[in-house]
Structure formats: C-alpha cells, structure tokens
C-alpha cells in the first residue's frame, strides 16, 4: 500500500524535535478535532485562564549559559540572549563536583542557575559542568573506566570513576560489570564524564530484564506517579523545556536503533530498550509534541511540558526516588536539565518524586 511506504516522510526524528513548530501545533490540531480544550483534558489542574493547558516555553526560574565572570556577589553569564548579570543571594550555593562557594566557579564553565523568584535577578543555586550518564555498561577497562551505552538515541559515553568517588559509587553500584545498569552524576570533562555521585541504587537485574509491569484492566490510570529524572541536552538546546518520554509510539517515532552485527565484544551487552517491553510502569503511547502536566511532589511545583524526545532508556530502570518519601517504582519522565531545575529539582540529587497527568 502506498501509505505504508510513506511512513518515513513524517516519522518523528528525535533531532527534529529541536525545531518544534510542527510538533507544537499538534496540541492545537488535537484539541480542534476532538473538540476538547486542554482545560477539560486536565480537569484536576487549577490554573490561571491565560496559561491553562499550554506549555509555557519561557523559563521562569532557570537560566543556562556560560560563565563569563564571577565575584562573591555578582555572576555574569553568556546566555542565548547575550551577556546577563545576576546577583547572588547571601545563601547562594554552587555545585561543581561538590558544594562550593560561587566564587570558586570558573569562567568558561557551562552553568545552570536557579532564580530565587520567577524572573527575578537573584540566583540561589548554581550548577557548573554537571553531567550525567545513564545506561548499560558494555565494557570495563581496569577499575575506573567504563564504556556505557545510553540507548540508540543518545549513543555511548565514557565514564571515569576517580579513586576518591569509587567507594561512594560502589556502595550503590556494586556490579560495575558489562551487562549491568549504571546511572551516575559528575563533572563533564573533555570526552568523558568524571563520575562523582550515584544517581540511584543499581537495579539487581541485568539490563533489559526489569520486572514486568502489572497488567492493567480497563484504561491506564491518570494521573500516574513515579520517578522523574533528568538527562544532558545532547543535541537539544540547553534551555529546552520538555521531557523525554519512555513510551513513544513505536509505529511513528522512528525510534529504533540500528543494531547491526556486533563489531566488538561490548556490543553483546548493549540493550535496545525498545525491545524490552514496557518497563515496570505502563504508560500510554504518545508522540513528540504531546503535552503533559507534571508535578514535583517534593516542591509542589507544576508545569505543562511537551514531549521533546524519546526516553526509552528510562524503561530499563525500575527504581524509586526517595527525595521526599518513597515514590512508586519506575521512571515516568526523563526531563531536560532546564525543565528539571524549573520544577524545583536539584541536579545533584538526580530525581524527584513526580506525578504526571496525560489528560483524558
């Protein structure tokens, strides 16, 4: 049939999501054809009339950019709007491999700032050169060097574990061996991540063998609770507000990796997360551009966010977040760094307990 041959023409290239005009329009078209406004889609959400059900694309709390200068009271940042100056709150704390004074940050560092008040000129948290690697260990060289597969969409990264952080990481990740999962936060270095903090506890199973989610009778519950994590921007803009969704429609998302014949022994351990089932949380199939409502249960901050990329690797992790209480098992959203900070998350913690409404 002709239309089957046409599929690649409109399939969702994840890279395409960075020019979101086509995807942003989908919510409008959906509302038009189903005759449902977003306010009726999310009946449990109370909001001001002017922003009901829209993904507010501007960042209210978060600023991203490169540090040009820093003093004990002022930080100068090069952002996509040019050079911007921010006052540092008296209680301002910075993270650069650990908690440091803001004055210890270096010009040239890539930084994410959190404002004290929405749109305000004062910042109270700064993260510099923070990075994260989440995926399957496919090769280990010596005690400190790991080669990690982050899934077909993100590729592979090198993780170096310094001796000082080794004990801390191995307590939470006892099996640093090919075939097991890893999720670590650290400092971005040239060509690798210097792992410093375990972002979760290592699942006891091998990658791709997470327990199956319980079967669902009727429709999937909405809202759904679980863990929200963050990922590095990769090809996305630094200040993108959105999330990588673990269950993109496999028929239209072109999300499958190209798993050819193994070219080295580590390939045997790589896992295509799309081929491992739903994970331990059953989420409905959505597409890039779908609008979700997400709440950080720890800070009570909420936001409408669009799906901007494929987050299938999140399916491999059947973990809980214990930032405030214990979340249900399973990762429901893999946020961009900007969205994570915007919702009040602390990047060095790695997750927050989240509630997500898909809208019925």
């Amino acid at each position, binding site marked *: *049939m*002709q*239309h*089957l041959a*046409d*599929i690649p*023409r*409109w399939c*969702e290239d994840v890279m395409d999501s960075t020019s979101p005009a*086509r995807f942003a*329009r*989908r919510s*409008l*078209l*959906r509302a*038009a*054809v*189903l*005759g449902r406004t977003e306010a009726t*889609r999310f009946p449990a959400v109370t909001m001001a009339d002017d922003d009901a059900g829209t993904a507010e694309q501007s960042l209210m709390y978060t600023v991203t950019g490169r540090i040009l200068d820093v003093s004990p009271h002022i930080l100068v940042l090069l952002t996509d709007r040019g050079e911007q100056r921010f006052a540092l709150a008296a209680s301002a704390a910075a993270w650069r491999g650990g908690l440091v004074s803001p004055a210890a940050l270096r010009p040239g560092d890539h930084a994410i700032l959190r404002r004290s008040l929405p749109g305000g000129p004062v910042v109270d948290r700064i993260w510099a050169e923070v990075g994260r690697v989440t995926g399957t260990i496919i090769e280990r060289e010596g005690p400190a060097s790991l080669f990690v597969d982050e899934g077909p969409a993100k590729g592979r990264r090198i993780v170096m574990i310094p001796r000082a952080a080794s004990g801390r990481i191995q307590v939470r990740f006892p099996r640093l061996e090919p*075939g097991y999962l890893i999720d670590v936060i650290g400092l971005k270095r040239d060509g690798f991540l210097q792992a410093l903090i375990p972002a979760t506890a290592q699942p*006891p*199973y*091998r*990658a*791709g*063998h997470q327990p*199956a989610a319980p*079967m*669902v009778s*009727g*429709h*999937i519950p*909405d809202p759904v609770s679980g863990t929200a994590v963050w990922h590095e921007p990769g090809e996305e803009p630094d200040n993108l507000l959105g999330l990588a969704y673990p269950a993109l*429609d*496999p*028929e*239209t998302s072109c999300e499958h990796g190209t*798993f050819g*014949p*193994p070219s080295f*022994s580590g*390939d*045997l*351990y*790589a*896992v*295509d997360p799309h*081929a*491992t089932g*739903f994970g331990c949380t059953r989420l*409905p*199939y*959505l*597409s*890039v*551009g*779908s609008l979700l409502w997400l709440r950080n249960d720890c800070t009570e901050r909420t936001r409408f966010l669009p799906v901007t990329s494929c987050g299938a690797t999140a399916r491999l992790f059947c973990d809980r977040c214990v930032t405030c209480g214990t979340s249900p098992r399973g990762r429901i959203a893999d946020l961009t760094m900007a969205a994570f900070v915007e919702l009040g998350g602390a990047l060095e913690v790695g997750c927050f307990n989240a509630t997500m409404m*898909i809208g*019925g």
Partner: protein
Amino acid sequence: MLTALREVQIPLLAVMLLGGCAAKAWRALHSRSARSAAAATDATGLVPLHLRRPAVVMLFMAEALLGLGLIGTAGWLGDAAPRLPATIVRTATALFFLVAMGALNELRQRRPDAGCGCFGDFSDTPVGLRTIARPGVLCAAAVATIGLPPLRMPSSSAEAGMCLAALAVELTLIAFLSPELGDLLVRLGYTEPCELQRLPVGRTMSDLRASSPWRRYASQVSTAEPADVWREGCWRFVVYPGVVSARRVDIVFAVYLQARRPAVRVAVLDAATDEILGFAGARESAVL
C-alpha cells in the same frame, strides 16, 4: 497394568519435549537481535554470554531430537533387536531431565531472579522447588520407559480407561509443578488497554479510508500523502493539506485505535490562522 502405565509416559514425554522445543525456538526466532537472545535470563544464563545463543539452539535441537526419537522408536523401529535405538533414546531422555534438574538447582542458587526458560517466554517466573521437581518427575517417567516393549493399542476398554486415568493424574501433577500454566491462563484472558496496543499505521489508514468522514472530505484533500501522523493514547491523528473555497486548510482526522469499527472524527482548520472551519464525526465519548 504396570506396562500400560509405563507406555503412557512415552507420548507424554514426547509432547513435553516438543512443546519446550517449539517455545524455545519461537523465542529465539522472535528475539529482536542476537543480543537480546543472548542476554536472556534463563538457564542459559549459567554459560558465558557469547555462548548463550548457541546453547539455546543446542537445547531446543536436543529436545526436538529426543521428542522425535521417542515417537520414532516407540513402535517397530524400537523393536529391532536388541531394542538398542529405543533404549538409547529413552536413556538419553532420562539423562537430559536429570541434567536439567541439576542445572535448574544451580540456577536457583546463582540467579534467584531468573526464570528457567523451559517454555520460552512463558517461563519467566523465578525458579522454585516446583520448577526443579518437574524435570525430576519427567526423569523418573523416562527411566520407567527403559526396556518397554513396542507400544500397542489398549487390549480392552478397562485398560484404555486405566491409561487415561493415569495420564490425567500425571498431567495434573505436571500442571501443579508448572508455574507457566498460571501465566498462560492470565495471558489468554487479558487484552491490553487501547493506549498500550501497537497498531500499524497502515491499519489506521485503511480504517480512515473506509470511513464516512474520509469520503466526505477526500475530494478536498490536495495531496496523496499525509502531512503529519502521530498518536496520543487511543487516538491516532492524520493531517492532510487541502483546499476549501480557495482557502488553504489542514484537514485533521482522528481515528480511535480499536480493531473493529473505530470512531473517526475530522476537523478543518485554516492553515494560516488555525481558525476551525468545520468538524464532523462520531461524538461518542472515548478516553485518551
């Protein structure tokens, strides 16, 4: 009577072996890649990763050979003096189940989270004592068949009834020792919610083109190919560019993802202003 009970074991063992073989072969053939098959967490998890796929293939080949061998040597072929082929096959079957019992015990010690994989995807339940006891029972059944004369039809209805009763008791025992049965029954009665069902785009397009909203707007569609197709939960959306009264429009179809007679809705929007110019279609409630 004892001979009749022993005779029942041969078809039973053959069915178990061929069933296990078919389930393993199905799993191996339907794995997305060599990697996923190789990384399977089952009894083959005891061998190094690069040997797992060959191990799976060897396993189901052995089961096929033994199953077919039991059937082939049950009659006249097994009657050749000194009944060596039948004895070899039945002894090999007993050894196979004995080794399987040891392997499962080892798997339970080393990988308590792993399923046995005895019946492919159905055997994901972690190995327990029941799973280990099952090959033990089958091993005993295989031992009981060694030295048995060629199979024959029951000589009387009483003997046939005895055979059937013995078969029923043994099947009940095996069912009790098989965690796969519970999973199978649950799966047979389960249907995924529409939000989780994979439905090919081609199927959606066929449903769309058979619908009355499509027939109504088809003449206004200006391209053969959709400009966009995406899915949200139970709905798949298809957008075609079109022309209505000399205005460039987007004609948006929403197709509910169900197997039979899906609801189809349509809306027409001005391509420049996004003003809604009209809509139609079934209005029954549906959940995303």
